[in-house]
């Protein structure tokens, strides 16, 4: 049942059912606009903030080339939350609050080892949260400690790619997370399918039949 979906992921899972041409065009335009004007929330806690939010804004890297230079201090005006730095237990509720205050559509990028997994602070540590994804859903992970600004730009491009294929007007607030598209060269879906099937089914792929019966759009004739 789930296999078919994983095979053709992400094309099948999120297709706008009923596919009107008008909506399709509007989807493309809106997603294009969203992807090219990501306003990051200036949320930096430690070392990554220097590289991710300050050095990228500076002349040598210049985030403005990606339409993302408008770093906002207010979550209400931002649509990209760059988790740059370690999140400790005391900061966790604040991060969650900030995320919830952001308007939809909102995207989260975890930069650096600390925000991905706790990084250097995994073992024998009483205070650090092991990864921002324990608190908020994360869209893009950027490994590095800290990642260099170019790595951040690559992540930004990756996120833009995701947004462009992302939300549609009909099924809103459902991000496509094209897990497979990030695979390194030479690796196919089949290589890790066996290993990841359970997790994939749970986290990333959508079972269309099941969703048709129980999902948020159940009974609306989409599936």
């Amino acid at each position, binding site marked *: 049942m789930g296999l078919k979906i994983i095979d053709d992921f992400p094309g099948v899972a999120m297709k706008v059912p009923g596919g009107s041409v008008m909506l399709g065009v509007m989807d493309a335009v809106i997603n294009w606009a969203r992807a090219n004007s990501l306003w990051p929330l200036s949320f930096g806690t430690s070392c990554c903030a220097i590289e991710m939010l300050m050095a990228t804004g500076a002349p040598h*890297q210049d985030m403005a080339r990606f339409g993302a230079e408008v770093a906002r201090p207010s979550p209400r005006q931002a649509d990209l939350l760059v988790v740059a730095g370690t999140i400790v237990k005391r900061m966790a509720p604040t991060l969650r609050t900030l995320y919830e205050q952001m308007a939809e559509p909102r995207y989260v990028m975890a930069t650096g080892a600390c925000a991905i997994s706790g990084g250097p602070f995994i073992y024998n540590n009483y205070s650090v949260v092991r990864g921002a994804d324990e608190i908020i859903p994360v869209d893009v992970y950027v490994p590095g400690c800290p990642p260099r600004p170019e790595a951040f730009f*690559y992540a930004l491009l990756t996120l833009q790619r995701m947004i462009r294929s992302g939300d549609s007007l009909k099924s809103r607030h459902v991000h496509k997370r094209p897990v497979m598209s990030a695979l390194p060269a030479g690796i196919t879906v089949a290589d890790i399918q066996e290993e990841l099937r359970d997790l994939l089914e749970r986290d990333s792929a959508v079972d269309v039949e099941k969703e048709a019966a129980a999902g948020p759009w159940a009974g609306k004739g989409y599936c």
Partner: protein
Amino acid sequence: MALFDPKGARAETRQVAGKSVAVLLAPRLVRRGFLHDVFYGLKSLLTGMRVTLPYGLTTSRIVTRQYPENRGTLKMYERYRARLTFIRDGQGRHTCTGCRNCEKACPNGSIIIETAKGAVTGKNEVQRFIWRFDACTFCNLCVYTCPFDALEMKGDFEHAVFDRRLLVYNLNSYAGPHASLWDKVEDEEQRKTLATKISPYDGKVPLAGTSMAGCPARAHGEGGAS
């Protein structure tokens, strides 16, 4: 004339912490009345503009690096540390003996090595060299302590993914002996059985949320919902 004289710092010698130290005393700003302030303020603003204006007029001072347009020509410094890899010879063989020096040297347990006794060689062979890219801090201690020069840090940086589980790598592309053991096996038929191919995600990967030897399970739902 000016409020602030940049060369007005006074040099003198002071006794501090039991030593005489050559110090430079900060110049102070002086105020000379309202009218003077008005004109000086105007002058200082114009000075600032005179400094910044040439930057707007000339394009020869552009310093911005044009990533991603320059992707084809962009070269990292050769020592730049961004990804751990095995050093391989021309035939794709590595020199890792599975001595676990790097595993012990790693400050945060990013390296997990599984070894087994080789059927032919009878020596310890690396089965899987698991490297947790998601936790690595690129401190270089693994490369630094490796006695066999089996590891190196590469400078490529384009690794952003949508799924954290894809950041757990197998560094070795085959499970089997290291390069010098390989040469000692003379029988052609035996050589063919020495190694089995594995992919970067082969075998049971220490995924987030699951537990395995050397990688404890992450407790879910502890830091908050979702």
